[in-house]
């Protein structure tokens, strides 16, 4: 099954060590066939709201930056527990914060 993991932004500034550890982690997860896609997201982005016929597009950044998604990973695992384990490893590298894990249905 597939899970999408989304991690919220935190205040810490990434350093060289974190980049190196992340790169190694991503390599390893790709090699084991678990990680299908991953990426970081721009902090601002645009917001689109649809009400009736009306479409409103608002440019970011938005106030509650802690609730905005900073990065995602799409993983293919056997169970939810495996997804949680992957996420646990990820959080050990990037530090405190919140991630959301949701199963992706085809």
């Amino acid at each position, binding site marked *: 099954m597939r899970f999408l993991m989304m991690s919220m932004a935190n205040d810490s500034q990434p350093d060289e060590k974190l980049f190196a550890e992340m790169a190694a982690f991503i390599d390893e997860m*790709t*090699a*084991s*066939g*678990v990680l*299908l*896609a991953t990426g970081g997201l721009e902090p601002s982005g645009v917001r689109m709201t649809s009400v009736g016929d009306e479409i409103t597009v608002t440019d970011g950044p938005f106030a509650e930056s802690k609730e905005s998604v900073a990065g995602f990973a*799409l993983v*293919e*695992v*056997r*169970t939810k*527990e*495996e997804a*949680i*384990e992957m996420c646990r490893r990820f959080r*050990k590298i990037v530090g405190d914060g919140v991630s959301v894990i949701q199963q992706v249905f*085809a």
Partner: protein
Amino acid sequence: MTDVHRTVDAVWKLESARIVAGLTRMVRDVGLAEELAQDALVAALEQWPATGVPDNPGAWLTAIAKRRAVDHLRWSERLERKHELLAREPEPEARQDDVLRLMFVSCHPVLSAPARAALTLRLIGGLTTAEIARAFLVTEPTITGRIAAAKRTLAEEGVPFELPEGPELADRLSSVLGVIYLIFNEGYSATSGDDLLRPGLCLEALRLGRLLAELAPHEAEVHGLVALMEIQESRSAARTGLTGEPVQLHEQNRGRWDQLLIRRGFTALLRAREVGGPPGPYVLQAAIAVCHAQARTAEDTDWAQIAALYGALARVLPTPVVRLNRAVAVGHARGPQAGLELVDEVADDPALRDYHLLPGVRGDLLRRVGRHAEARSEFHRAAALARNEAERAFLLRRADEVAVDETDGPTVGEAAEDFLGRDDLDTATVRSYGQTLRRLCRTVGERTPLAELTADQVTRVFATAWGDAAATTWNRHRSTIRSFGAWASLGDLAAGLDRRAETRPRTPSLTPERLEELWSLDVPLRERTLWRLLHESAASVSAVLSLDVEDLDLDDRRARADGTWVSWRAGTAQLLPSLLGDRTSGPVFLADRRPGPGRMPAPADLCPHTGRGRLSYERAEHLFKRTTGGTLRQLR
């Protein structure tokens, strides 16, 4: 399972390959390494519920397993040598290529294909025996036994934990690829049961393939296999309809194809091309899959390119199935008639005898060239051969869709039924006739009008079904067909079939010199008597062994056995009285010992005087073979 158990299980599946590989490097025995790793798993299951899951569960498992391994090595006699090894390998942390070594071991050609698949899922995938058993639809003890036997074989054959090199590499690698693809296909198309997909296995195979691609990046075929699996898997949602029926590639909703997997497939194929070299079977199959994936609609499919790729594939992998697929591609690229010609080239291949796709493909091509009646009959044949319900229903629907003028008169199937239903046939004959006619129906199609059945078709059925059969089998089927033809007033359906000479390969009798030698040997009285009697009577071994004392007419030197007379001459007559002694009834030839309580023979096979049983054929044969190297029949 509790949450902790599920976590342990998840960690285990992610880590087990590296743990087992690292331990194998230490102890040089896959079976032992896996047991040690299992010990660590058990420890985790015992401790984690109380202590909580450790910060780095993988490292925890590795550390425990390593400690067990060191304990084991200390305990074992080869302590010193291992110290040396340990000094050289201070960390059991697997090197990246240790997992690759483990794959080469678990897919080693000394193991049978099912054993390779089971062991690979166990060692690399970290699956439990129960999970493997469920995936392959066999019982758990079957898998347990299969894995235990595989480990034993690896130990006995001394399969080394190393990377094959030079010319060996290609063979060993193709074995690994074969195992992964077998696992994938097992999941992709369940061969029995009502479920068309067992997706868990596909996922395992994909993971194994992706892992292998990272471990052996310079092998084009590895990337080819990964590309092939990614793209096949990309269609998994689209290849079954709402009721679980198969949806053919050209009718699939391409919007349901998984673009992410398709892109991964493209990338993998590009990596294969970068490695270079002449394309192997997996690269070619992947290239074909990519061609399909690139077409936005079925009509856009580049059939000319696909037909060319199949042509190349048929050169490196000339299997009947590949040639059949090539025929399909050519049927699209150059028209149904061209495809039909290629199908007919493989139609009589015995390997495709029970392959439902052959009549399925043929039916489709026949329909397109307008030979509707034949097409319909082929679809019925295909349905009869299909191995799951969904496909059967689908093929029957295709048969019904072909517009055919209903023909008068009985079909082959109906005629066969009537022929077998006559009341002048005994059961054995019906059974024997039935075998022949069922095969006939299955191969020509039971809906084929009887009037269209020709000797030519029958000849082809025979070549495909019984071309390699023994002469007696061939002749039995041939005479069935002849009487069926006569009964149905179709003339001699066996016109194209020669009766085969039934030459039974006779073991030559012993020469007089050898016999003299035999009589002069110092062997026990029972054997001496039995051999003499067999030689002098020329009776069958079982008849002679069935003799009872009361059957013997010592004066006339003969006995009644199995409805015939067994008679002997002076040599036996001399020996028999001593062999019989005071016995007046019971078997003439007795076993050496009394039977055990669990293996009590029938009363007729027990000697009332000694309590011993009748000498068995196997034992008698064994004793003769041990003495002479030949078989008792040679005494005749």
